[in-house]
Protein backbone atom coordinates (compact mmCIF):
# COMPACT_ATOMS: atom_id res chain seq x y z
CA UNK A 1 0.00 0.00 0.00
CA UNK A 2 1.36 3.41 -0.91
CA UNK A 3 1.81 5.70 2.10
CA UNK A 4 -0.47 8.71 1.95
CA UNK A 5 1.61 11.84 1.64
CA UNK A 6 0.05 14.56 3.69
CA UNK A 7 1.75 17.80 2.76
CA UNK A 8 -0.99 19.93 4.26
CA UNK A 9 -2.08 20.92 7.76
CA UNK A 10 -5.63 21.78 8.73
CA UNK A 11 -5.98 25.14 10.43
CA UNK A 12 -8.31 24.76 13.45
CA UNK A 13 -9.10 28.48 13.42
CA UNK A 14 -10.08 28.61 9.75
CA UNK A 15 -13.75 28.25 8.78
CA UNK A 16 -14.82 24.68 7.94
CA UNK A 17 -15.46 25.82 4.40
CA UNK A 18 -14.57 29.04 2.67
CA UNK A 19 -15.12 29.90 -0.99
CA UNK A 20 -14.20 33.10 -2.84
CA UNK A 21 -15.08 34.07 -6.41
CA UNK A 22 -15.64 30.48 -7.57
CA UNK A 23 -16.25 30.15 -11.31
CA UNK A 24 -17.28 27.08 -13.28
CA UNK A 25 -17.47 26.81 -17.04
CA UNK A 26 -19.17 23.80 -18.59
CA UNK A 27 -18.85 23.21 -22.31
CA UNK A 28 -17.85 26.83 -22.99
CA UNK A 29 -20.75 28.27 -20.99
CA UNK A 30 -20.03 29.99 -17.72
CA UNK A 31 -22.50 28.44 -15.27
CA UNK A 32 -20.98 29.95 -12.17
CA UNK A 33 -19.48 33.44 -12.53
CA UNK A 34 -18.38 34.39 -9.03
CA UNK A 35 -19.75 32.72 -5.91
CA UNK A 36 -18.67 33.14 -2.29
CA UNK A 37 -19.59 31.61 1.03
CA UNK A 38 -18.25 30.78 4.46
CA UNK A 39 -19.51 27.91 6.60
CA UNK A 40 -18.68 27.51 10.29
CA UNK A 41 -19.17 24.55 12.61
CA UNK A 42 -22.61 24.42 14.23
CA UNK A 43 -24.43 26.46 11.64
CA UNK A 44 -26.89 25.72 8.89
CA UNK A 45 -26.24 27.75 5.78
CA UNK A 46 -28.85 27.59 3.02
CA UNK A 47 -28.10 28.38 -0.61
CA UNK A 48 -31.26 29.63 -2.23
CA UNK A 49 -32.08 30.92 -5.66
CA UNK A 50 -34.25 30.29 -8.70
CA UNK A 51 -33.88 27.23 -10.92
CA UNK A 52 -30.72 27.48 -13.01
CA UNK A 53 -29.05 30.03 -10.73
CA UNK A 54 -26.08 27.67 -10.26
CA UNK A 55 -26.85 26.39 -6.73
CA UNK A 56 -26.12 22.73 -7.46
CA UNK A 57 -23.08 23.55 -9.58
CA UNK A 58 -21.70 25.70 -6.74
CA UNK A 59 -22.25 22.94 -4.17
CA UNK A 60 -20.67 20.30 -6.44
CA UNK A 61 -17.67 22.55 -7.07
CA UNK A 62 -17.26 23.10 -3.32
CA UNK A 63 -17.42 19.35 -2.68
CA UNK A 64 -14.85 18.50 -5.35
CA UNK A 65 -17.42 16.77 -7.55
CA UNK A 66 -16.77 19.27 -10.30
CA UNK A 67 -13.53 21.13 -10.83
CA UNK A 68 -13.87 24.91 -10.43
CA UNK A 69 -12.48 26.85 -13.41
CA UNK A 70 -11.08 29.49 -11.07
CA UNK A 71 -11.52 30.89 -7.59
CA UNK A 72 -10.56 29.73 -4.12
CA UNK A 73 -12.09 26.93 -2.07
CA UNK A 74 -10.58 25.97 1.29
CA UNK A 75 -11.65 23.26 3.70
CA UNK A 76 -10.38 24.03 7.22
CA UNK A 77 -7.80 26.26 5.61
CA UNK A 78 -6.56 23.70 3.06
CA UNK A 79 -6.99 24.29 -0.65
CA UNK A 80 -9.53 21.97 -2.29
CA UNK A 81 -7.09 21.14 -5.10
CA UNK A 82 -4.64 19.60 -2.61
CA UNK A 83 -7.21 17.24 -1.11
CA UNK A 84 -7.48 13.74 -2.58
CA UNK A 85 -10.62 11.60 -2.60
CA UNK A 86 -10.32 9.99 0.81
CA UNK A 87 -9.24 13.22 2.52
CA UNK A 88 -12.29 14.97 1.08
CA UNK A 89 -14.57 12.10 2.10
CA UNK A 90 -13.58 12.74 5.71
CA UNK A 91 -14.19 16.49 5.43
CA UNK A 92 -17.60 16.61 3.81
CA UNK A 93 -20.46 14.30 2.95
CA UNK A 94 -22.49 15.10 -0.14
CA UNK A 95 -26.13 14.02 -0.14
CA UNK A 96 -27.33 14.14 -3.75
CA UNK A 97 -30.60 15.53 -4.99
CA UNK A 98 -32.00 12.38 -6.54
CA UNK A 99 -31.17 9.28 -4.59
CA UNK A 100 -30.38 6.25 -6.67
CA UNK A 101 -32.44 3.39 -5.27
CA UNK A 102 -30.65 0.16 -6.16
CA UNK A 103 -32.21 -3.28 -5.90
CA UNK A 104 -30.97 -5.77 -3.34
CA UNK A 105 -29.36 -3.26 -0.98
CA UNK A 106 -30.48 -2.95 2.64
CA UNK A 107 -30.34 0.13 4.84
CA UNK A 108 -27.48 -1.45 6.82
CA UNK A 109 -25.59 -2.25 3.59
CA UNK A 110 -25.92 1.36 2.43
CA UNK A 111 -24.67 2.87 5.69
CA UNK A 112 -21.80 0.39 5.75
CA UNK A 113 -20.87 1.50 2.22
CA UNK A 114 -20.88 5.08 3.54
CA UNK A 115 -18.45 4.12 6.29
CA UNK A 116 -16.12 2.49 3.76
CA UNK A 117 -14.80 6.00 3.04
CA UNK A 118 -12.74 5.51 6.21
CA UNK A 119 -11.11 2.28 5.07
CA UNK A 120 -8.03 1.62 3.02
CA UNK A 121 -8.56 -0.73 0.06
CA UNK A 122 -9.27 -4.28 1.38
CA UNK A 123 -9.21 -3.08 5.01
CA UNK A 124 -11.96 -4.57 7.18
CA UNK A 125 -14.35 -2.72 9.51
CA UNK A 126 -13.05 -2.08 13.03
CA UNK A 127 -15.13 -1.90 16.21
CA UNK A 128 -14.96 1.89 15.89
CA UNK A 129 -16.39 1.67 12.37
CA UNK A 130 -19.28 -0.51 13.57
CA UNK A 131 -19.99 2.03 16.30
CA UNK A 132 -20.02 4.85 13.74
CA UNK A 133 -22.45 2.89 11.54
CA UNK A 134 -24.72 2.26 14.52
CA UNK A 135 -24.67 5.89 15.66
CA UNK A 136 -25.38 7.13 12.12
CA UNK A 137 -28.51 4.97 12.03
CA UNK A 138 -29.59 6.27 15.44
CA UNK A 139 -28.97 9.93 14.57
CA UNK A 140 -30.89 9.65 11.29
CA UNK A 141 -33.73 7.88 13.17
CA UNK A 142 -33.36 4.81 10.96
CA UNK A 143 -32.74 2.34 13.79
CA UNK A 144 -34.98 -0.70 13.25
CA UNK A 145 -34.86 -0.27 9.47
CA UNK A 146 -31.47 -2.03 9.08
CA UNK A 147 -32.72 -5.08 7.20
CA UNK A 148 -35.21 -3.21 5.02
CA UNK A 149 -34.37 -3.06 1.31
CA UNK A 150 -33.92 0.49 0.02
CA UNK A 151 -36.48 -0.27 -2.69
CA UNK A 152 -39.18 -0.70 -0.01
CA UNK A 153 -38.65 2.69 1.69
CA UNK A 154 -40.78 5.82 1.37
CA UNK A 155 -39.22 9.00 -0.04
CA UNK A 156 -38.70 10.47 3.44
CA UNK A 157 -37.14 7.27 4.79
CA UNK A 158 -34.86 7.06 1.75
CA UNK A 159 -33.73 10.65 2.33
CA UNK A 160 -32.92 9.83 5.96
CA UNK A 161 -30.88 6.83 4.79
CA UNK A 162 -28.98 9.18 2.47
CA UNK A 163 -28.20 11.40 5.46
CA UNK A 164 -27.17 8.33 7.49
CA UNK A 165 -24.80 7.28 4.68
CA UNK A 166 -23.29 10.78 4.83
CA UNK A 167 -23.06 10.73 8.63
CA UNK A 168 -21.21 7.40 8.51
CA UNK A 169 -18.45 9.23 6.65
CA UNK A 170 -17.83 11.00 9.95
CA UNK A 171 -17.24 14.35 8.23
CA UNK A 172 -17.76 17.68 10.01
CA UNK A 173 -19.74 19.09 7.07
CA UNK A 174 -22.87 17.71 5.44
CA UNK A 175 -23.86 19.16 2.08
CA UNK A 176 -27.42 18.32 1.07
CA UNK A 177 -28.72 19.21 -2.40
CA UNK A 178 -32.49 19.76 -2.24
CA UNK A 179 -33.09 16.89 0.19
CA UNK A 180 -36.76 17.79 0.57
CA UNK A 181 -37.59 18.64 -3.05
CA UNK A 182 -39.66 15.51 -3.60
CA UNK A 183 -41.02 15.04 -0.09
CA UNK A 184 -44.45 15.69 1.36
CA UNK A 185 -45.00 18.17 4.21
CA UNK A 186 -44.49 15.65 7.03
CA UNK A 187 -41.31 14.16 5.57
CA UNK A 188 -39.97 17.65 4.82
CA UNK A 189 -40.45 18.64 8.46
CA UNK A 190 -38.80 15.38 9.63
CA UNK A 191 -35.73 15.95 7.45
CA UNK A 192 -35.56 19.61 8.57
CA UNK A 193 -35.62 18.59 12.23
CA UNK A 194 -32.95 15.99 11.52
CA UNK A 195 -30.68 18.60 9.93
CA UNK A 196 -31.23 21.00 12.86
CA UNK A 197 -30.31 18.22 15.34
CA UNK A 198 -27.07 17.65 13.43
CA UNK A 199 -26.29 21.36 13.59
CA UNK A 200 -26.96 21.30 17.35
CA UNK A 201 -24.41 18.45 17.55
CA UNK A 202 -21.83 20.78 16.01
CA UNK A 203 -21.93 19.82 12.34
CA UNK A 204 -21.80 22.44 9.64
CA UNK A 205 -24.69 21.89 7.25
CA UNK A 206 -24.88 23.39 3.79
CA UNK A 207 -28.39 23.06 2.43
CA UNK A 208 -29.45 23.78 -1.11
CA UNK A 209 -33.10 24.57 -1.19
CA UNK A 210 -35.53 26.52 -3.32
CA UNK A 211 -38.37 26.81 -0.81
CA UNK A 212 -37.84 30.28 0.69
CA UNK A 213 -40.18 29.70 3.62
CA UNK A 214 -38.35 26.48 4.52
CA UNK A 215 -34.96 28.18 4.19
CA UNK A 216 -36.13 31.04 6.42
CA UNK A 217 -37.25 28.58 9.10
CA UNK A 218 -34.28 26.21 9.22
CA UNK A 219 -31.26 28.28 8.19
CA UNK A 220 -29.05 30.35 10.48
CA UNK A 221 -27.86 32.23 7.44
CA UNK A 222 -28.69 32.17 3.75
CA UNK A 223 -26.77 32.84 0.57
CA UNK A 224 -28.87 34.04 -2.35
CA UNK A 225 -27.78 33.11 -5.85
CA UNK A 226 -28.94 34.59 -9.10
CA UNK A 227 -27.60 34.00 -12.59
CA UNK A 228 -24.43 32.27 -11.45
CA UNK A 229 -23.49 34.71 -8.71
CA UNK A 230 -24.00 34.98 -4.97
CA UNK A 231 -25.73 38.32 -4.53
CA UNK A 232 -26.59 38.50 -0.83
CA UNK A 233 -25.89 36.72 2.42
CA UNK A 234 -27.01 37.02 6.04
CA UNK A 235 -29.96 36.34 8.31
CA UNK A 236 -32.89 35.07 6.20
CA UNK A 237 -35.35 37.76 7.33
CA UNK A 238 -32.85 40.58 6.72
CA UNK A 239 -31.90 39.33 3.29
CA UNK A 240 -35.19 38.08 1.86
CA UNK A 241 -36.89 41.42 1.53
CA UNK A 242 -39.84 41.81 -0.80
CA UNK A 243 -37.60 43.92 -3.01
CA UNK A 244 -34.99 41.13 -3.33
CA UNK A 245 -37.63 38.46 -3.97
CA UNK A 246 -39.09 40.67 -6.67
CA UNK A 247 -35.68 41.32 -8.22
CA UNK A 248 -34.51 37.70 -8.20
CA UNK A 249 -37.68 35.66 -8.70
CA UNK A 250 -39.79 38.29 -10.42
CA UNK A 251 -42.64 37.66 -8.03
CA UNK A 252 -44.31 39.96 -5.51
CA UNK A 253 -44.13 38.20 -2.17
CA UNK A 254 -43.55 38.80 1.49
CA UNK A 255 -41.75 36.51 3.90
CA UNK A 256 -43.25 36.23 7.37
CA UNK A 257 -41.76 34.44 10.35
CA UNK A 258 -43.43 34.13 13.68
CA UNK A 259 -42.48 31.89 16.63
CA UNK A 260 -40.53 29.37 14.57
CA UNK A 261 -43.16 29.29 11.86
CA UNK A 262 -42.52 30.79 8.48
CA UNK A 263 -44.49 31.40 5.37
CA UNK A 264 -44.36 33.19 2.11
CA UNK A 265 -47.30 35.36 1.20
CA UNK A 266 -47.23 35.25 -2.57
CA UNK A 267 -49.13 37.24 -5.10
CA UNK A 268 -49.76 34.25 -7.39
CA UNK A 269 -51.84 36.02 -10.01
CA UNK A 270 -51.88 39.43 -11.59
CA UNK A 271 -54.08 42.13 -10.15
CA UNK A 272 -52.80 42.45 -6.58
CA UNK A 273 -52.34 45.75 -4.79
CA UNK A 274 -49.30 46.63 -6.91
CA UNK A 275 -50.92 45.51 -10.14
CA UNK A 276 -49.57 43.09 -12.72
CA UNK A 277 -45.94 42.79 -13.88
Amino acid at each position, binding site marked *: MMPVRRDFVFDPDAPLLEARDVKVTIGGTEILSGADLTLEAGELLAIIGPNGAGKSTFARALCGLRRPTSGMVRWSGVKLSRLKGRDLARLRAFV*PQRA*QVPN*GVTVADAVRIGRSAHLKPLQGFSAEDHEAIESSLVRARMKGFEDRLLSTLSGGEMQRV*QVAVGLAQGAPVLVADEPTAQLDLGATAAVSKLLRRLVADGLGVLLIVHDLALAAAVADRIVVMSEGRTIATGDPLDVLTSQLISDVWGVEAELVRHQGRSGLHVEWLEGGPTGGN
Partner: protein
Amino acid sequence: MSIRRSAVGFTLLAALAVSIVASLAYGAVDIPFGSVIDILLGKGASGPDTQIVETLRLPRTVEAIIVGAALGVAGALLQGALANPLASPDVIGVTGGAGFGAVLIIILYPDSIALLPVGALVFGLIAAGMVFVIGFTGPTGGGIGRVILAGIAIASLFAAGTAALMAAYPDRVPSAIFFLVGGLTSTGWETLKQVWPYFTFGFVLAIFMIRPLDRLLLGDDVASSLGSKPRTIRLLASLAAAVLASAAAAVAGLLAFLGLVVPHVVRLAGGTNNHTFVVPVSAVGGAALLVAADTLARVVRAPIEMPVGPFLVVLGVPLFLWLLRKAV
Protein backbone atom coordinates in the same frame (compact mmCIF):
# COMPACT_ATOMS: atom_id res chain seq x y z
CA MET B 1 -30.49 -12.24 5.58
CA SER B 2 -26.90 -13.23 6.16
CA ILE B 3 -28.00 -16.82 6.90
CA ARG B 4 -29.49 -16.92 3.42
CA ARG B 5 -26.26 -15.62 1.92
CA SER B 6 -24.16 -18.18 3.80
CA ALA B 7 -26.52 -20.96 2.70
CA VAL B 8 -26.15 -19.95 -0.95
CA GLY B 9 -22.37 -19.75 -0.61
CA PHE B 10 -22.06 -23.17 1.03
CA THR B 11 -24.49 -24.81 -1.39
CA LEU B 12 -22.43 -23.59 -4.34
CA LEU B 13 -19.18 -24.67 -2.68
CA ALA B 14 -20.67 -28.14 -2.11
CA ALA B 15 -21.89 -28.24 -5.73
CA LEU B 16 -18.38 -27.31 -6.86
CA ALA B 17 -16.81 -30.06 -4.73
CA VAL B 18 -19.22 -32.69 -6.07
CA SER B 19 -18.67 -31.51 -9.66
CA ILE B 20 -14.90 -31.68 -9.26
CA VAL B 21 -14.99 -35.27 -7.99
CA ALA B 22 -17.42 -36.24 -10.77
CA SER B 23 -15.27 -34.50 -13.37
CA LEU B 24 -12.21 -36.50 -12.26
CA ALA B 25 -14.11 -39.79 -11.97
CA TYR B 26 -16.34 -39.84 -15.06
CA GLY B 27 -15.51 -39.77 -18.76
CA ALA B 28 -14.63 -42.32 -21.40
CA VAL B 29 -13.39 -44.50 -18.52
CA ASP B 30 -15.12 -44.43 -15.13
CA ILE B 31 -12.78 -44.45 -12.15
CA PRO B 32 -14.17 -45.16 -8.65
CA PHE B 33 -14.34 -42.14 -6.29
CA GLY B 34 -12.06 -43.88 -3.78
CA SER B 35 -9.31 -44.32 -6.38
CA VAL B 36 -9.68 -40.68 -7.49
CA ILE B 37 -9.14 -39.49 -3.92
CA ASP B 38 -6.15 -41.81 -3.51
CA ILE B 39 -4.62 -40.57 -6.75
CA LEU B 40 -5.10 -36.93 -5.72
CA LEU B 41 -3.44 -37.63 -2.37
CA GLY B 42 -0.52 -39.28 -4.19
CA LYS B 43 -1.37 -42.71 -2.81
CA GLY B 44 -2.69 -44.22 -6.05
CA ALA B 45 -0.98 -47.14 -7.70
CA SER B 46 0.75 -46.16 -10.91
CA GLY B 47 -1.39 -47.34 -13.79
CA PRO B 48 -3.68 -46.10 -16.53
CA ASP B 49 -6.19 -44.66 -14.02
CA THR B 50 -3.54 -42.53 -12.36
CA GLN B 51 -2.32 -41.35 -15.74
CA ILE B 52 -5.83 -40.45 -16.92
CA VAL B 53 -6.54 -38.45 -13.77
CA GLU B 54 -3.18 -36.73 -13.55
CA THR B 55 -2.46 -35.85 -17.16
CA LEU B 56 -5.92 -35.53 -18.70
CA ARG B 57 -8.70 -34.92 -16.21
CA LEU B 58 -6.94 -32.87 -13.53
CA PRO B 59 -5.68 -30.17 -15.92
CA ARG B 60 -9.04 -30.07 -17.63
CA THR B 61 -10.92 -29.79 -14.35
CA VAL B 62 -8.60 -27.03 -13.16
CA GLU B 63 -9.18 -25.24 -16.48
CA ALA B 64 -12.93 -25.52 -16.00
CA ILE B 65 -12.69 -24.14 -12.45
CA ILE B 66 -10.55 -21.16 -13.50
CA VAL B 67 -12.51 -20.37 -16.67
CA GLY B 68 -15.87 -20.72 -14.88
CA ALA B 69 -14.71 -18.51 -12.02
CA ALA B 70 -13.23 -15.95 -14.44
CA LEU B 71 -16.45 -15.65 -16.46
CA GLY B 72 -18.61 -15.49 -13.33
CA VAL B 73 -16.46 -12.68 -11.93
CA ALA B 74 -16.28 -10.88 -15.31
CA GLY B 75 -20.07 -10.86 -15.56
CA ALA B 76 -20.50 -9.67 -11.98
CA LEU B 77 -17.98 -6.84 -12.50
CA LEU B 78 -19.54 -5.67 -15.75
CA GLN B 79 -23.11 -5.81 -14.50
CA GLY B 80 -22.00 -3.74 -11.50
CA ALA B 81 -19.81 -1.30 -13.40
CA LEU B 82 -22.34 -0.64 -16.16
CA ALA B 83 -25.36 -0.87 -13.82
CA ASN B 84 -26.94 -3.03 -16.48
CA PRO B 85 -28.40 -6.50 -15.95
CA LEU B 86 -27.68 -7.44 -19.57
CA ALA B 87 -23.96 -6.77 -19.32
CA SER B 88 -21.63 -9.67 -20.07
CA PRO B 89 -18.27 -10.01 -21.85
CA ASP B 90 -20.25 -9.58 -25.11
CA VAL B 91 -21.01 -6.00 -24.21
CA ILE B 92 -17.40 -4.80 -24.11
CA GLY B 93 -16.49 -6.52 -27.35
CA VAL B 94 -14.41 -9.34 -25.84
CA THR B 95 -16.52 -12.18 -27.20
CA GLY B 96 -16.58 -10.74 -30.72
CA GLY B 97 -12.85 -9.99 -30.68
CA ALA B 98 -11.79 -13.36 -29.25
CA GLY B 99 -14.04 -15.18 -31.74
CA PHE B 100 -12.44 -13.29 -34.62
CA GLY B 101 -8.90 -13.94 -33.34
CA ALA B 102 -9.54 -17.66 -32.98
CA VAL B 103 -11.28 -18.04 -36.34
CA LEU B 104 -8.44 -16.09 -37.97
CA ILE B 105 -5.93 -18.70 -36.75
CA ILE B 106 -8.19 -21.70 -37.43
CA ILE B 107 -9.10 -20.64 -40.97
CA LEU B 108 -6.09 -18.72 -42.28
CA TYR B 109 -3.26 -20.42 -40.33
CA PRO B 110 -4.49 -23.94 -39.62
CA ASP B 111 -0.89 -25.16 -39.44
CA SER B 112 -0.23 -22.84 -36.50
CA ILE B 113 -3.22 -24.03 -34.48
CA ALA B 114 -1.11 -23.79 -31.30
CA LEU B 115 -1.48 -20.01 -31.66
CA LEU B 116 -5.25 -20.22 -31.20
CA PRO B 117 -5.27 -19.24 -27.50
CA VAL B 118 -2.95 -16.31 -28.23
CA GLY B 119 -5.14 -15.19 -31.13
CA ALA B 120 -8.28 -15.31 -28.99
CA LEU B 121 -6.61 -13.52 -26.08
CA VAL B 122 -4.98 -10.79 -28.15
CA PHE B 123 -8.02 -9.98 -30.27
CA GLY B 124 -10.30 -10.14 -27.23
CA LEU B 125 -8.12 -7.51 -25.57
CA ILE B 126 -7.82 -5.44 -28.77
CA ALA B 127 -11.60 -5.32 -29.12
CA ALA B 128 -12.03 -4.36 -25.45
CA GLY B 129 -9.29 -1.75 -25.84
CA MET B 130 -11.13 -0.19 -28.77
CA VAL B 131 -14.35 -0.12 -26.76
CA PHE B 132 -12.58 1.53 -23.82
CA VAL B 133 -10.91 4.17 -26.00
CA ILE B 134 -14.21 5.09 -27.64
CA GLY B 135 -16.32 4.66 -24.51
CA PHE B 136 -14.14 6.45 -21.99
CA THR B 137 -12.94 9.47 -24.00
CA GLY B 138 -14.75 12.57 -25.19
CA PRO B 139 -17.06 14.91 -23.29
CA THR B 140 -19.49 12.15 -22.28
CA GLY B 141 -16.69 9.60 -21.82
CA GLY B 142 -17.27 6.99 -19.13
CA GLY B 143 -21.04 7.26 -19.36
CA ILE B 144 -22.77 3.90 -19.27
CA GLY B 145 -24.69 4.44 -22.49
CA ARG B 146 -21.58 5.46 -24.40
CA VAL B 147 -19.57 2.42 -23.24
CA ILE B 148 -22.37 -0.01 -24.10
CA LEU B 149 -23.01 1.52 -27.53
CA ALA B 150 -19.27 1.49 -28.31
CA GLY B 151 -19.24 -2.17 -27.26
CA ILE B 152 -22.11 -3.07 -29.56
CA ALA B 153 -20.45 -1.30 -32.50
CA ILE B 154 -17.06 -2.95 -32.00
CA ALA B 155 -18.60 -6.38 -31.37
CA SER B 156 -20.53 -6.07 -34.66
CA LEU B 157 -17.33 -5.11 -36.47
CA PHE B 158 -15.50 -8.23 -35.29
CA ALA B 159 -18.53 -10.45 -35.83
CA ALA B 160 -18.60 -9.22 -39.43
CA GLY B 161 -14.90 -10.09 -39.75
CA THR B 162 -15.56 -13.59 -38.42
CA ALA B 163 -18.49 -14.05 -40.80
CA ALA B 164 -16.37 -12.85 -43.74
CA LEU B 165 -13.62 -15.35 -42.92
CA MET B 166 -16.13 -18.18 -42.66
CA ALA B 167 -17.82 -17.18 -45.90
CA ALA B 168 -14.47 -17.04 -47.73
CA TYR B 169 -13.36 -20.49 -46.52
CA PRO B 170 -16.57 -22.49 -45.97
CA ASP B 171 -14.67 -25.81 -46.05
CA ARG B 172 -12.69 -24.85 -42.93
CA VAL B 173 -15.68 -23.68 -40.90
CA PRO B 174 -16.33 -27.01 -39.13
CA SER B 175 -13.02 -26.81 -37.24
CA ALA B 176 -14.02 -23.41 -35.87
CA ILE B 177 -17.35 -24.58 -34.49
CA PHE B 178 -15.89 -26.18 -31.36
CA PHE B 179 -14.31 -22.85 -30.39
CA LEU B 180 -17.31 -20.71 -31.27
CA VAL B 181 -19.69 -22.91 -29.29
CA GLY B 182 -17.22 -23.16 -26.44
CA GLY B 183 -15.48 -26.30 -25.32
CA LEU B 184 -12.65 -27.50 -23.11
CA THR B 185 -10.01 -29.85 -24.44
CA SER B 186 -7.70 -32.35 -22.79
CA THR B 187 -4.43 -30.72 -23.76
CA GLY B 188 -2.80 -30.86 -20.34
CA TRP B 189 -1.37 -27.76 -18.72
CA GLU B 190 -0.11 -26.07 -21.92
CA THR B 191 -2.76 -23.36 -22.38
CA LEU B 192 -2.92 -22.53 -18.69
CA LYS B 193 0.86 -22.06 -18.66
CA GLN B 194 0.44 -19.41 -21.35
CA VAL B 195 -2.45 -17.45 -19.89
CA TRP B 196 -2.18 -17.74 -16.10
CA PRO B 197 -0.68 -14.25 -15.66
CA TYR B 198 -3.81 -12.76 -17.27
CA PHE B 199 -6.09 -14.70 -14.93
CA THR B 200 -3.99 -13.61 -11.95
CA PHE B 201 -4.06 -9.95 -13.00
CA GLY B 202 -7.83 -10.09 -13.59
CA PHE B 203 -8.68 -11.80 -10.31
CA VAL B 204 -6.45 -9.52 -8.21
CA LEU B 205 -7.84 -6.37 -9.83
CA ALA B 206 -11.37 -7.75 -9.34
CA ILE B 207 -10.77 -8.10 -5.59
CA PHE B 208 -9.79 -4.44 -5.39
CA MET B 209 -12.90 -3.38 -7.34
CA ILE B 210 -15.42 -5.01 -4.99
CA ARG B 211 -15.80 -2.11 -2.56
CA PRO B 212 -15.70 0.65 -5.21
CA LEU B 213 -18.48 -1.16 -7.11
CA ASP B 214 -20.56 -1.24 -3.93
CA ARG B 215 -20.18 2.53 -3.72
CA LEU B 216 -21.30 2.86 -7.32
CA LEU B 217 -24.49 0.98 -6.38
CA LEU B 218 -25.59 4.06 -4.42
CA GLY B 219 -25.06 6.27 -7.47
CA ASP B 220 -22.21 8.28 -8.96
CA ASP B 221 -22.74 11.21 -6.60
CA VAL B 222 -22.55 9.09 -3.46
CA ALA B 223 -19.50 7.27 -4.82
CA SER B 224 -17.87 10.68 -5.41
CA SER B 225 -18.88 11.82 -1.94
CA LEU B 226 -17.08 8.74 -0.59
CA GLY B 227 -13.89 9.76 -2.40
CA SER B 228 -14.11 7.44 -5.44
CA LYS B 229 -14.04 8.39 -9.10
CA PRO B 230 -17.00 6.70 -10.83
CA ARG B 231 -15.37 6.80 -14.26
CA THR B 232 -12.17 5.20 -12.96
CA ILE B 233 -14.15 2.48 -11.17
CA ARG B 234 -16.03 1.67 -14.39
CA LEU B 235 -12.84 1.58 -16.43
CA LEU B 236 -10.86 -0.60 -14.01
CA ALA B 237 -13.72 -3.03 -13.34
CA SER B 238 -14.33 -3.36 -17.10
CA LEU B 239 -10.60 -3.85 -17.66
CA ALA B 240 -10.48 -6.69 -15.12
CA ALA B 241 -13.52 -8.25 -16.79
CA ALA B 242 -12.00 -7.89 -20.27
CA VAL B 243 -8.75 -9.57 -19.23
CA LEU B 244 -10.55 -12.41 -17.44
CA ALA B 245 -12.97 -13.02 -20.31
CA SER B 246 -10.22 -12.87 -22.96
CA ALA B 247 -8.09 -15.37 -21.04
CA ALA B 248 -11.16 -17.57 -20.56
CA ALA B 249 -11.86 -17.48 -24.30
CA ALA B 250 -8.25 -18.48 -24.97
CA VAL B 251 -8.75 -21.61 -22.88
CA ALA B 252 -12.33 -22.61 -23.55
CA GLY B 253 -13.76 -20.68 -26.48
CA LEU B 254 -16.85 -18.52 -26.32
CA LEU B 255 -18.93 -19.18 -23.21
CA ALA B 256 -20.37 -15.71 -22.66
CA PHE B 257 -23.66 -17.17 -21.46
CA LEU B 258 -21.95 -18.13 -18.22
CA GLY B 259 -20.85 -14.57 -17.55
CA LEU B 260 -24.36 -13.28 -18.12
CA VAL B 261 -26.33 -15.78 -16.08
CA VAL B 262 -24.19 -16.81 -13.10
CA PRO B 263 -24.14 -13.39 -11.36
CA HIS B 264 -27.93 -13.17 -11.76
CA VAL B 265 -28.38 -16.61 -10.24
CA VAL B 266 -26.17 -15.55 -7.34
CA ARG B 267 -28.05 -12.26 -6.80
CA LEU B 268 -31.47 -13.84 -6.99
CA ALA B 269 -30.52 -16.72 -4.72
CA GLY B 270 -28.72 -14.53 -2.18
CA GLY B 271 -31.30 -11.71 -2.30
CA THR B 272 -28.58 -9.07 -2.40
CA ASN B 273 -26.63 -6.94 -4.85
CA ASN B 274 -23.68 -6.43 -2.53
CA HIS B 275 -20.52 -7.08 -4.49
CA THR B 276 -18.76 -8.41 -1.40
CA PHE B 277 -21.17 -11.32 -1.84
CA VAL B 278 -21.90 -11.34 -5.58
CA VAL B 279 -18.30 -11.28 -6.90
CA PRO B 280 -16.74 -14.16 -4.91
CA VAL B 281 -19.88 -16.28 -4.98
CA SER B 282 -20.19 -15.78 -8.76
CA ALA B 283 -16.66 -17.18 -9.00
CA VAL B 284 -17.69 -20.31 -7.09
CA GLY B 285 -20.97 -20.62 -8.99
CA GLY B 286 -19.34 -20.16 -12.38
CA ALA B 287 -16.71 -22.76 -11.57
CA ALA B 288 -19.33 -25.25 -10.32
CA LEU B 289 -21.52 -24.77 -13.39
CA LEU B 290 -18.69 -25.13 -15.90
CA VAL B 291 -17.14 -28.18 -14.20
CA ALA B 292 -20.56 -29.87 -14.04
CA ALA B 293 -21.41 -28.99 -17.64
CA ASP B 294 -18.02 -30.17 -18.90
CA THR B 295 -18.43 -33.49 -17.08
CA LEU B 296 -21.82 -33.89 -18.73
CA ALA B 297 -20.33 -33.02 -22.13
CA ARG B 298 -17.78 -35.80 -21.77
CA VAL B 299 -20.16 -38.41 -20.38
CA VAL B 300 -23.29 -38.05 -22.51
CA ARG B 301 -21.87 -39.65 -25.64
CA ALA B 302 -18.63 -41.09 -24.24
CA PRO B 303 -16.08 -41.60 -25.63
CA ILE B 304 -17.07 -38.73 -27.95
CA GLU B 305 -16.58 -35.33 -26.30
CA MET B 306 -19.23 -32.73 -27.00
CA PRO B 307 -18.64 -28.94 -26.81
CA VAL B 308 -19.53 -27.71 -23.34
CA GLY B 309 -21.41 -24.56 -24.42
CA PRO B 310 -24.81 -26.14 -25.04
CA PHE B 311 -24.61 -28.19 -21.83
CA LEU B 312 -23.91 -25.03 -19.89
CA VAL B 313 -27.13 -23.62 -21.25
CA VAL B 314 -29.05 -26.82 -20.56
CA LEU B 315 -27.93 -26.79 -16.92
CA GLY B 316 -28.01 -23.03 -16.39
CA VAL B 317 -31.24 -21.91 -18.01
CA PRO B 318 -33.66 -24.03 -15.94
CA LEU B 319 -31.98 -22.91 -12.71
CA PHE B 320 -32.07 -19.31 -13.89
CA LEU B 321 -35.73 -19.46 -14.90
CA TRP B 322 -36.66 -21.14 -11.63
CA LEU B 323 -35.07 -18.28 -9.67
CA LEU B 324 -36.55 -15.67 -12.00
CA ARG B 325 -40.06 -17.03 -11.34
CA LYS B 326 -39.83 -15.79 -7.75
CA ALA B 327 -38.12 -12.51 -8.59
CA VAL B 328 -40.56 -10.97 -11.06
